[in-house]
């Protein structure tokens, strides 16, 4: 390290981070030269927990992977298990799942927009956006019974049907959200102080977005046409027409516009889905155990591509279950975004990928010199902790 550079640690405790994670920035004055990311502060051992629970119990545990994309993770899980069980889900259930998934996308994108506004000090926008987000939360409560952890799905279908009363509420709610989202888009395009802080900040060029495998709105803001709903449709997305939103200015402003436009697109999907809702049952009975084999499912969560892998040994518990949450796919591209930027832009650049640390955390030991990796058992960790704290 030369004399003019020094390191600034961001995290694990920092006001810009909602969850603990460590970014060590090497800076020259205000400019960032290098970034080191350290994960593992909020690893919860979820994947191990899946192995000791039945498939039905896991359906509710998997929601807890992420409090915001609860529906996305659960839907990915049930899609995976249903395809392994080879059961056919009725079309009405597919449509209801799509509606709840899109409501969740609206809620997640509006939540992000509020957080982003807060990061750049625009608290008025933050308050307004979160007020409007309540509409989507209330609608989800009407449909599933819960505002956040919905438990909307069950193996073979959904738990609750849509009544005509709820449908009319959905129609009204989606209209209000669309109007508000269009208003926020206008603000984002015209308000000078937002543009000052967002335009040209956290650049991720098209080439890097492809090479570093960025996912979700982050990659679409760099002009990459990548959306699981389009290239590998699940639920009812193959029957519903919608636009794939991309922007090519590759900066934080583009990420704002992509998310606001996707919110508008989601309200259109909901409108289409409720006016073309097929009749029929909302579920079929699913067996308790899964035949031996492996399954992978992809899903477009609000933050990006979610990948679940399951290995079954024929019992009612999975032998191995792996979750790759979207944030993990965005770490590499985020390091790229930070390099060359200013320290004052770190919070908004970090927030721009909509990171969710605890969904994504991994825990392993790596010796950087020899590339050796290993893991510790709980007993070994306890021993180490006792030694470390000298007790």
């Amino acid at each position, binding site marked *: 390290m030369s004399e003019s550079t020094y390191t600034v640690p961001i995290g694990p405790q920092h006001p*810009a981070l909602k969850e603990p994670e460590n970014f060590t920035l090497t800076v020259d004055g*205000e400019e960032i030269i290098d970034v080191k990311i350290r994960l593992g502060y909020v690893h919860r051992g979820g994947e191990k927990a899946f192995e000791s629970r039945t498939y039905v119990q896991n359906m509710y545990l998997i929601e807890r992977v992420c409090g915001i994309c609860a529906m996305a993770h659960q839907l990915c899980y049930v899609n995976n298990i249903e395809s392994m069980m080879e059961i056919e889900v009725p079309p009405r259930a597919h449509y209801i799942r799509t509606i709840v998934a899109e409501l969740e996308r609206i809620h997640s994108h509006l939540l992000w927009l509020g957080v982003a506004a807060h990061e750049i*000090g625009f608290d008025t926008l933050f*308050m307004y956006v979160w007020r409007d987000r309540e509409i989507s939360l209330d609608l989800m409560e009407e449909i599933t019974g819960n505002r956040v952890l919905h438990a909307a799905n069950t193996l073979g279908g959904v738990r609750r049907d849509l009544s005509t009363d709820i449908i009319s509420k959905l129609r009204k709610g989606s209209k209000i959200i669309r109007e508000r989202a269009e208003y926020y888009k206008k603000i984002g395009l015209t308000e000078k102080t*937002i543009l000052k*802080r967002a335009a040209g900040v956290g650049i991720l060029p098209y080439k890097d977005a492809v090479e570093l495998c960025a996912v979700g709105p982050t990659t679409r803001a760099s002009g990459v046409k990548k959306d699981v709903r389009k290239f590998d449709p699940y639920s009812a997305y193959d029957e519903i027409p919608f636009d794939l939103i991309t922007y090519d200015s590759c900066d934080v402003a583009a990420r704002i516009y992509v998310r606001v436009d996707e919110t508008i697109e989601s309200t259109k999907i909901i409108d289409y889905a409720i006016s073309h809702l097929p009749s029929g049952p909302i579920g079929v009975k699913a067996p308790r155990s899964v035949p031996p084999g492996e399954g992978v499912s992809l899903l477009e969560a609000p933050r990006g591509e979610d990948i679940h892998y399951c290995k079954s040994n024929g019992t009612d518990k999975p032998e191995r279950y792996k979750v790759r949450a979207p944030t993990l796919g965005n770490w590499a591209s985020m390091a790229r975004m930070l390099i060359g930027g200013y320290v004052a832009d770190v*919070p908004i650049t970090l927030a721009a990928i909509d990171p969710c640390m605890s969904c994504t955390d991994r825990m392993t030991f790596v010796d950087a010199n020899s590339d050796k990796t290993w893991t510790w058992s709980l007993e070994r960790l306890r021993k180490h902790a006792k030694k470390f704290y000298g007790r």
Partner: protein
Amino acid sequence: MIEVLKLLIIPGIFFLFSLALFYQWLDRKFYARLQNRYGPLHTGRQGILQPFADFLKLLAKEDIEPKAVDKYIFRGVPILFLTISITALFLIPMSGIEAFTHFEGDLIFILFIMSLVAILAFLGGWCSTNRFSTIGGLRAAVQTLGFEVPLAIAFIGPAILAQSLSITEIVRWQAENNLWAIALNPLGFGIAIIALLAELEKIPFDIPEAETEIVAGWQTEYSGRKLALLRFSFDLELIMAAALITALFLGGPTGPISVFPGIIWFLIKATIVVLILSNLRALFARFRIDQMVSGSWKYLVPLAILQIIVLQLILG
């Protein structure tokens, strides 16, 4: 005897303390209503006693002093901050045309006090030896470079009109000519408001205490009594800003209906200025420090000079 009473009651310390807490409530409430929130609601009617309750609560809290801080400066900063803010307030006319104390050149003295405030912020940040505090203190110092010059030039406008550098004389000139300085200095008024937003560290210039970037900026290590004093000084500074704008541009404590005492006119005008300041801080996102300084030198300074030139042309 009367002088002492004046010092203690109106426009004295008691009046200023109540007004500071009232304006904090007004600012919070108005800002909250603009954001579609309720704001303070529980203590007193419509939460009007909330700032007082916060003040008392902070006084009672544990006062933590980190080991590494420079104790004398760390303790001195909140006290000096409060003293300086009160000193500035006695130079501005509030209850009548004449301020409690006035002399030729007190406008310059007020500007000097504003620079001292920035230096205190820098010292407070520096002696805390906390990374966030240090950055916050540095930002406070850099921000001064941005707003001080346009603010000074904007204040020169009314001074040219009254041919005096005394705030009391400027108010007297406005009362005698029955003309508010804002009529000839509209641009100067706008620039002064913007620069005072920066002085008060409010959005879009809350850069030295940017919550999401550097916790509480230079005040990060302050707690308990010291934080209470600091926060209270900020309230006093809000009065100072409102009173200065009132005195220099809006005719001070005089008005068309002479039945009301001057203090009523002062309160009406100052309240309007406080509402303008709260309204502005609900409208914007935070600038980056480099954007703030360069924007100030690119736009505010030339505009302020233009205002002086236009004023001179009008006066012939």
